[in-house]
């Protein structure tokens, strides 16, 4: 097998396509395991994407772009955490508002960058894409180990299952939830940054094109387990890569639009299968989406 082997090329392309979704889904996993439903994921990715492009374009360093994207989305996530964990606003409504805010904000900030390219920084980032791909896989393995074998991981699982239990033991529920929303948002931002700096080094309005929603679906598909997220992301990456090749090649026996739809169909099927399981087996954090209020009676 050589590097030009079409199968291998397709697999490589699949891994690259999978990476932004992988980062975003892992970020969402941390947030949801902490019991917070973050529907602002698409908005966070866009904030990450536009920040990364602006900084990389200005500084000429793609790495600086990535770091700033993480910081900016972490701050964006901090706002979300303050609203839903601190003020206990409705998580669904607030999350959707964050998505709309993120998409509007990124369009506003990025309007003078439309059509620009990154030049040398872009080609350097594309050359280093393997590092980011490996980084995503490493994050997934680390997340799995963290959840399973560490005490902070146990606390994270408990945050989504029964925060009142942690509180009664004198462990900090609200700070921990905020921490995971911010950390997870940073990872989501990295996923967005990967799109605008590595995948297609440019900025276009709404360029994440629904990858945030796919990541959200992936978390459910993976039943809140990190390694299954990798499997799901790669599966999606394969579909994406195949779709791209089919479009470029012009000939395809499956309509690319049909392929676009598949991840959502898979999610619905998984949800349907899940409904037949007992609550403990399904893996959904029991108190996902419920704000913790100590004195509520």
């Amino acid at each position, binding site marked *: 097998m050589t590097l030009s082997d079409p199968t291998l090329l397709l697999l490589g392309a699949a891994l690259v396509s999978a990476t932004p979704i992988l980062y975003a889904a892992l970020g969402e996993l941390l947030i949801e395991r902490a019991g917070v439903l973050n529907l602002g994921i698409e908005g966070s990715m866009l904030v990450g994407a536009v920040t990364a492009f602006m900084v990389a374009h200005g500084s000429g360093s793609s790495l600086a772009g990535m770091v700033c994207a993480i910081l900016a989305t972490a701050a964006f996530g901090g706002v979300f955490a303050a609203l839903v964990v601190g003020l206990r606003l409705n998580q669904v409504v607030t999350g959707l508002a964050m998505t709309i805010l993120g998409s509007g904000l990124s369009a506003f900030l990025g309007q003078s960058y439309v059509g620009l390219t990154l030049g040398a920084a872009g080609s350097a980032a594309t050359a280093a894409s393997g590092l980011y791909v490996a980084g995503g896989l490493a994050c997934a393995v680390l997340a799995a180990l963290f959840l399973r074998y560490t005490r902070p991981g146990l606390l994270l699982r408990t945050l989504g299952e*029964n925060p009142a*239990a*942690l509180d*009664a*033991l004198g462990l900090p529920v609200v700070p921990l939830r905020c921490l995971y929303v911010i950390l997870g948002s940073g990872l989501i931002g990295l996923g967005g940054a990967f799109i605008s700096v590595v995948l297609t080094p440019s900025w276009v309005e709404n360029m994440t094109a629904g990858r945030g929603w796919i990541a959200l679906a992936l978390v459910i598909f993976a039943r809140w387990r990190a390694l299954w997220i990798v499997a799901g992301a790669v599966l999606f990456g394969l579909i994406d890569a195949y779709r791209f090749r089919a479009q470029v090649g012009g000939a395809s026996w499956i309509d690319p639009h049909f392929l676009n739809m598949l991840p959502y169909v898979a999610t619905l099927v998984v949800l349907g299968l899940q409904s037949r399981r007992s609550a403990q087996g399904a893996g959904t954090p029991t108190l996902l989406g419920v704000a913790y209020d100590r*004195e509520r009676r």
Partner: protein
Amino acid sequence: MNATFPVPPQMNGITAPLCSLVGVTKRFGKIVANDDVTFSVMPGEVVALLGENGAGKSTAMNVLCGLYLPDAGTVEVDERPLVLGSPAASVARGIGMVHQQFKLVLSLTAYENVSLAVDRGRFWQRKRPSGEIERLMAEVGFELDMAKPVWRMSLAERQQLEILRVLAQGARILVLDEPTSVLSPLESERLFMLVRRIIARDRAVILISHKLSEIRQVASRLVVMRGGRVVFEGPASGRTSEEIAGLIVGTRSVCVSPRPSSAKGPDRLTVENLRVKGHSGRDSVRDVSFRVQGGELVAVVGVAGNGQAELLDAIGGQKAPSGGRIVTSDGRKGRRFAFVPAQHLGVALAPGLSIEDNTLLGVHRRRPFSAWMARRDVRRHCRTVQDMFGVAAEPGSPIRRLSGGNLQRIVLGRELVGDPALVVASYPTRGLDIAAAAQIRNALIARAAAGAAVLMASEELEECLTIATRILVMSGGRVVLDRETGQTNLDEIGRFMTAAEAS
């Protein structure tokens, strides 16, 4: 974590209190849940904290364990002030509470739950308990499988796990909030033996309970609360249950009418080979058959989780049976008998609707109502329901503002309109204070005396022996004992309740 705590200071041979609440006041909006609550707990004591629902017992205990921040007052442990509103501070000073709603994570194993409390500061999670936990288990006489996930444990095991966890945290003041409501008499007996062993080491236990017999059995001192205030504090010895009940309810009289005569009428309810599946997919009611005749008041008892709740849910139409038959005397079209589900808010009542609208639920198709709801008829109906048990509240106000006792009064009032010939009530007195419970019991007795068949589930054996004419004991989803009340006693019922556990 398990640092050695200072020995309680001794003054002139008199032991100083382990902890004291001083002038604790806590308001929720306009409601004063605790008003200047002051009492102390000495080492080696079992203090029974008594009072009706809403008397402020749980609020006071939540202040003690740091979950509620009081508006005024202080708490002292070992005569030094405790930082208020911080569960971490309370835990560190040796206060441990076993809440009525267990604070366990169901999806985690028993050990992981204990570990949450004791393994602070480590990074890698241990899978197996340390020798310390094993020693503690041996000391208190528990035999728990620490690798078992909590959702597969019985309620009694979960309670042991909670107690173990609290002790492992180094608690010296153990608060037990209605600990026996999930236990069989034998298990309660074991719990009280444990309580005596715990206090033998200069620790103290605060026990919240509604069951006066157990209080007389185990408590050394009583603290009685009413309307958010401490109204009595004194030794428990030499007090009868009646005296204690009098302290709890104050001046109001509480008496339960005599049990209905056993003149039996026609069959009102026939259950044949009934099977009902529980949450886990296994049968929680297995092959149950019995009849209830007019004039009978039949009580279904058992340790929580042995199928009683599912049986009554199936009869009430809330769960579809997976086999067998339920025959009631009133035809097939809609339920025409009274049904009081175990949970009032959310099942029997819609929390967001007004009292008026709630009194219409289920009867909105009966006369005089039709597709058009005449305001006058609705008002009159609501007044009838409210007057049944004397609930004084504005008909248009949201029902969730009512107290637990009043909610149950509304449910039962609504269901008893039109004098149904069959009444099915699932735990109708659970969580109610003495006065409300007595009123509900009297209503059920009155229905039976008027010739209706009454079937109720209850977790209070003494209640059943007082008011029921017949007792069904369930264990492992089967009816293991079916006796007229006169032909059985507490010991026998207790034996049958725990019978299946051995097999």
